[in-house]
């Protein structure tokens, strides 16, 4: 189960609204490499993972991604709070406004609504861990791209925290892959699906 805690993982205190910047950061809410996709990906994949370390990592990172989703939501809310019609028009925010007013909606910077097609749960631990490693790097690049355009120090501070977490998660997933392959046949890791062909673990035991 999940228990909600009434605090952000890292504080978000933005003093100056900036709808242009909100439009870019929106992608990390519901875009192709965003936090919603990240949490759904890991929290879906974890059920069939073959080792306890992998189940724990996916559960904990998947949960952390939900708190990142909340941080991004807070950034978007604070960047668009109390805007006037003129400010909305001048910032080119009117297209978003027509569809969502100032509500926070999961979509990409280019306006594509969130879709589960952004993620995969393949039922093969090697495949899924490679997807997860790639996902962390894609999110890291997106944060790097956002940082190119963000000049508000309050926004940059929170974005830099989120970017650093992608790097830590990448490290943890790398360790997951090593923990998994250490238990497989080193001659050919890809001869079996470690989630479906249970005998690939048994073979390894026999060799020991």
């Amino acid at each position: 189960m999940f228990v909600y805690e009434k605090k952000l993982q890292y504080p978000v205190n933005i003093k100056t609204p900036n709808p242009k910047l909100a439009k870019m950061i929106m992608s990390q809410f519901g875009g192709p490499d965003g936090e919603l996709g990240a949490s759904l990906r890991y929290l879906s994949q974890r059920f069939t993972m073959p080792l306890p370390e992998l189940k724990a990592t996916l559960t904990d990172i998947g949960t952390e991604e939900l708190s990142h989703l909340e941080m991004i939501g807070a950034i978007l809310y604070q960047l668009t709070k109390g805007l006037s019609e003129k400010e909305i028009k001048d910032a080119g925010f009117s297209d978003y406004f027509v569809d969502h007013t100032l509500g926070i909606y999961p979509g990409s910077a280019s306006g594509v609504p969130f879709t589960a097609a952004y993620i995969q749960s393949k039922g093969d631990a090697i495949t899924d861990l490679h997807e997860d490693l790639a996902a962390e790097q894609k999110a890291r690049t997106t944060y790097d791209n956002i940082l190119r355009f963000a000049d508000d120090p309050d926004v940059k501070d929170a974005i830099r925290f989120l970017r650093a977490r992608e790097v830590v998660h990448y490290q943890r997933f790398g360790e997951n892959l090593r923990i998994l392959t250490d238990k497989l046949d080193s001659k050919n890791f890809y001869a079996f699906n470690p989630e479906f062909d249970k005998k690939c673990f048994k073979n390894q035991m026999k060799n020991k």
Partner: protein
Amino acid sequence: MTEREIMMKKLSSYQFTIDDLQLYLDTHPNDEKTIEKLNETIAEFTPLKDKFESLYGPLTADENSQNRWCWIKAPWPWETEEVE
């Protein structure tokens, strides 16, 4: 920053240390030094959290200690506080 924000920031940094150590332990479950560090951090975090909740209201819905429902009271974490 308000007194509440200063205390929340401290609380968040302890919580973050706890979360990051826990994640590290998922792939290093036999690292005794990290477990020790985790327990130390939790021991420092818990009284601070209790103090925060007694001053500013519950962080989780099951921590209601008064005879009225404090959970619905602001501020919510995405809201910025007005400068006092």
